[in-house]
């Protein structure tokens, strides 16, 4: 196991330290004519050396998004969907299809589907790949069982989702040292993420460390699968907890999850706060072990851990003040007609590569105040003190001048 951990560390160093950029979806990418062939994501063996790709997409009413991957028989495809902006209230469905790239036949049935396997009503699933060729992952809304757009998700504004696609051997390579029971002994993960298999047993705690940058979006998904099978080893009865720790070893606010789903398994998505980037650690333990000291009876069982980081795109926050308001909308409105500077351009809300009036309207849905009113900032007492001091100095000077005169 030490050898595996060492190999993982070497891989981490080889992969560099910057989080990969998320892959933005390209519309239209729906199901059936007249939609074009869905874009083929790069090969997982080369483009995504650590086995994890992060795709960002927008789901709107009646919209269906498809992504294509070239996979090899014997692999395991793990798919998890997160909504970093609105939490877990959006209701999605994901499906996995086996179909030639050039074929875009809406009658081809899915190999596997999932409705609410993720946090809240979000979705996730694991599929053993039994044929080499093109596999397609479809994202749609609740009720759209045919993946043809019969849904209302996004009616009140686009659902900006993160689709985590992980490909591993089946079963995933065991990459845990088992000596990783403390923060200091955490196994190093490649920057950008990883998909690995680990083992949890009573009194055991697993820690994994990776480098994150400010504003990165970090997702952690925990699967409990029977080797070589779509079925879970014990269904979803294994009960886990996960917790993120910052560079000082302190729990990250909002960085914990118990039953984010499915069942009692855990899932979470966190944006790294400004100034908090650095070496973070992911802790995995069992139910009730609030202190991550091993005080639990969960297991023994093997689990798949998928960790992804991607540079966050703060959509619509053009002036980068952490708040979308009228000034951001006005900046987008006045930039209409310009090409986007890239997939991370916050003005290009719909990701079509152009700044349009549609982006400005889409961004109003993310405003922090009604009618996109400006953020109210209360002046600090210190500034009032400076003003008062200035007034006193001025009065004093006037009095001195008066006395001399």
């Amino acid at each position: 196991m030490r050898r595996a951990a060492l190999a993982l560390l070497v891989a981490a160093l080889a992969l560099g330290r910057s989080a990969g950029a998320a892959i933005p979806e390209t519309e239209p990418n729906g199901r059936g004519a007249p939609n074009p062939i869905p874009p083929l994501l790069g090969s997982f063996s080369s483009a995504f050396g650590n086995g994890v790709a992060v795709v960002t997409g927008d789901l709107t009413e009646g919209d269906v998004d498809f992504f294509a991957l070239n996979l090899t028989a014997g692999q395991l495809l793990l798919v998890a969907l997160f909504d970093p902006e609105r939490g877990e209230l959006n209701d999605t469905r994901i499906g996995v299809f086996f179909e030639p790239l050039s074929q875009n036949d809406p009658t081809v049935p899915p190999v596997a589907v999932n409705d609410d396997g993720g946090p809240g009503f979000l979705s996730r699933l694991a599929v053993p790949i039994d044929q080499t060729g093109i596999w397609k992952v479809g994202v749609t809304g609740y009720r759209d069982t045919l993946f043809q757009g019969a849904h209302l998700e996004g009616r009140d504004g686009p659902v900006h989702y993160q689709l985590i696609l992980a490909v591993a051997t089946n079963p995933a390579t065991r990459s845990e040292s088992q000596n990783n029971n403390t923060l200091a002994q955490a196994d190093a993960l490649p920057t950008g993420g990883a998909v690995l298999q680990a083992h949890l047993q009573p009194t055991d705690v697993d820690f994994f460390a990776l480098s994150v940058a400010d504003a990165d979006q970090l997702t952690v998904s925990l699967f409990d699968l029977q080797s070589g099978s779509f079925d879970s080893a014990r269904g979803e009865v294994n009960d886990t907890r996960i917790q993120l720790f910052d560079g000082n070893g302190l729990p990250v606010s909002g960085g914990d999850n118990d039953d984010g789903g499915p069942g009692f398994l855990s899932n979470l998505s966190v944006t790294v706060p400004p100034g908090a980037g650095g070496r973070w650690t992911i802790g995995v333990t069992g139910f009730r072990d609030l202190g991550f000291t091993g005080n639990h009876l969960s297991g023994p069982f093997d689990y798949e851990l998928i960790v992804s980081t991607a540079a966050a795109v703060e959509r619509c926050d053009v002036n980068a003040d952490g708040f979308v308001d009228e000034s951001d909308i006005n900046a987008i409105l006045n930039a209409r007609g310009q090409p986007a500077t890239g997939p991370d351009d916050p003005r290009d809300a719909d990701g079509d590569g152009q700044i349009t009036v549609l982006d400005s309207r889409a961004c109003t849905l993310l405003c922090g105040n009604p009618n996109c009113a400006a953020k109210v900032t209360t002046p600090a007492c210190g500034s009032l003190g400076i003003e008062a001091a200035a007034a006193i100095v001025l009065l004093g000077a006037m009095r001195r001048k008066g006395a001399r005169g």
Partner: protein
Amino acid sequence: MNPNLKTMVLGALVFLALVRPASSISIDLVPAAVSSAVGDTFSVNVVVSGLVPQGSPRSEVGAFDLDLTFNSAAVSLVSVAFGVLLGNPGSGEALTSVVPGSGLVNFAEVSLLPSATLDALQPDTFTLATLSFQATAPGTSVLSLSRAVVGDGSGLALPVASLGAADVTASAPAIPEPRGFLLFVIGLATVGAFGARRRGVPS
């Protein structure tokens, strides 16, 4: 009813309820023909129609970005006034932008109101903006909407089926006839002048 048939009918109803009809809208200039004297100003309304009637699902206008071309040798742009059915720009309910050019004006508006408010506010046909021009030379000119991007409350593009135009005929200003009062004053002055001469010159 046969259970299978009932299921099919129910399924069809649910499908129809879920699938949003693709609405096509039109944007026209009203009136479509304008006559104006050189030097006078005239206005045309930019009117959107074909929105899905109120109810659910429906389409509302959340933003628009339009180009209007005109013959700058015959008319000049005076002003662009935006309507209030995307929200009142003066009350911080909408943002507007006008970019004038030579023979072209680009004008855009984005509503800051929620979609539900727009739904309640907007009828199926309404005025987006009113453009005022001044006729500067005799002749004819065509005001033409050359490009339109219209978004619904979610920022999704609404298909635009047609863009309108308006014909403008500018006529030379009529030469004003001397007014009666002016003639009266001139006549009075003439009579007074003759009278004064008669009194002042000895015979």
